[in-house]
């Protein structure tokens, strides 16, 4: 005896993790899209005419995000100009393949695509960096560079906002990680749908309440073209203890994902906790909470052949950077040059 759709009594194909409701394919598509629309409306994310780039990696989340944004923009007349923005880290056998997926998405969704590469921006691809520093701290470099590369790509294409594919499971995991680390400043920021300090480019997460299971099922039933493999340099990076713990919890009680997000949203931050002020990097001009941004510090270490120093304590690196700058008598070049 098959389960029936809770809304229309057709044959159900999915049990929703958030509610336990059973849905048919059509109702699932409709509700999944509608809930993302409601997230967007509640947060007043868009104004007509806004130029919005979807940060596209070719993976499941950003592919579903690009598809759904295209659908919603037409269905609900947001009047926004959508584009795709991808970062080419320069990782042979990983990013070159996933970029092919993004290029197909460009055709399939008829959205203009901009690709920015580490090699062009920083003079170093991740393949180059790994050759130089090995496999120990490479993810630090990649994370810092990727964050800034998206901002730079957005600036180049005069975009007003970047959308990222973070889903509910990602956000719950971040809440847990920040809790475990006692990082109160990040804990209070990580559930926000829009991040980005004043003067910097806003980033938004329209999938913040969408379960990973539903994203993957949506991609499966819509037969969306996405790329799934592990980064060759960090085969285990995504699978931290927090994620495993969360998936185990979810298999017993799927609601826990949304409950953890709500907990994160409702944490009250004591005023005595010092929040980092956001400014801009004196070297490259991009957003930084320090005088010189992490990307410039890391790049400086790479170019001087001292990368190990820079991935240790950041304070030490800042000191070393300042000393080195004095020695060089202010002769600095921006990595954007």
């Amino acid at each position, binding site marked *: 005896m*098959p*389960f029936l759709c809770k809304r229309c009594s057709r*044959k*159900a*194909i*999915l*049990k929703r993790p958030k509610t336990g409701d*059973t849905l048919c394919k059509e109702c699932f598509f409709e509700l999944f899209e509608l809930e993302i629309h409601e997230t967007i409306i509640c947060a007043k994310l868009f104004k007509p005419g806004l130029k919005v780039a979807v940060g596209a*990696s070719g*993976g*499941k*989340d*950003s*592919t*579903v995000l690009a598809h759904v944004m295209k659908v919603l923009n037409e269905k609900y007349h947001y009047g926004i100009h959508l584009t795709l923005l991808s970062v080419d880290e320069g990782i042979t056998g990983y990013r070159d393949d996933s970029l092919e997926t993004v290029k197909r998405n460009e055709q399939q969704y008829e959205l203009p695509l901009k690709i920015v590469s580490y090699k062009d921006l920083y003079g170093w691809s991740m393949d180059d960096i790994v050759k130089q520093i090995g496999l120990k701290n490479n993810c630090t470099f990649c994370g810092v560079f990727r964050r800034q590369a998206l901002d730079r790509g957005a600036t180049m294409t005069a975009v007003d906002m970047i959308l990222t*594919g973070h*889903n509910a*499971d*990602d956000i719950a995991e971040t809440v847990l990680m920040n809790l475990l680390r006692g990082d109160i400043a990040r804990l209070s920021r990580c559930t926000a749908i829009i991040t980005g300090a004043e003067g910097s480019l806003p980033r938004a997460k329209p999938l913040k309440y969408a379960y*990973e*299971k539903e*994203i*993957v*099922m949506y991609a*499966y*039933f819509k037969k969306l073209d996405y790329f*799934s*493999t*592990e*980064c060759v340099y960090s085969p285990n990076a*995504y*699978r931290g203890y927090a*994620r495993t713990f969360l*998936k*185990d919890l*979810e*298999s017993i009680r799927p609601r826990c994902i949304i409950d953890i997000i709500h907990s994160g949203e409702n944490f009250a931050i004591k005023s005595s906790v010092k929040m980092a002020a956001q400014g801009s990097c004196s070297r490259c001009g991009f957003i930084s909470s320090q005088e010189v941004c992490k990307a410039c510090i890391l790049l400086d270490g790479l170019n001087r052949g001292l990368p190990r120093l820079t991935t240790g304590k950041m304070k030490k690196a800042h000191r070393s950077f300042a000393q080195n700058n004095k020695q060089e008598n202010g002769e600095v070049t921006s990595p954007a040059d």
Partner: protein
Amino acid sequence: MPPRDIRVEFAGGVELLFDNQKQLDIPISKFHDPSHPAKENLTYTVRDLLQLLKDRYLKQRLELFLQGDNVKPGILVVINDCDWELMGGPDYELEPGDRVVFISTLHGG
């Protein structure tokens, strides 16, 4: 003639654990345990399929596919285009011609 095989598909990164094979056709006869002569009307469940995949097909890193005798949380199972949670999960009794898809949600987005 109706199909006598179980069609198994891997997606979302699960295929990496199976030598990059995206698809297997497994005859029902493969489920028979040679140490226990096949009985009449014996049925096989998805749990038996998991055991078979583990014993005969899984190429590496068992812990990324199975947890105990069930799939690892984060791997979705779709049977005949339906969420296996609506089909009885691992207790679902397989029939020839069934299509079972394993999709990982754990790979980057």
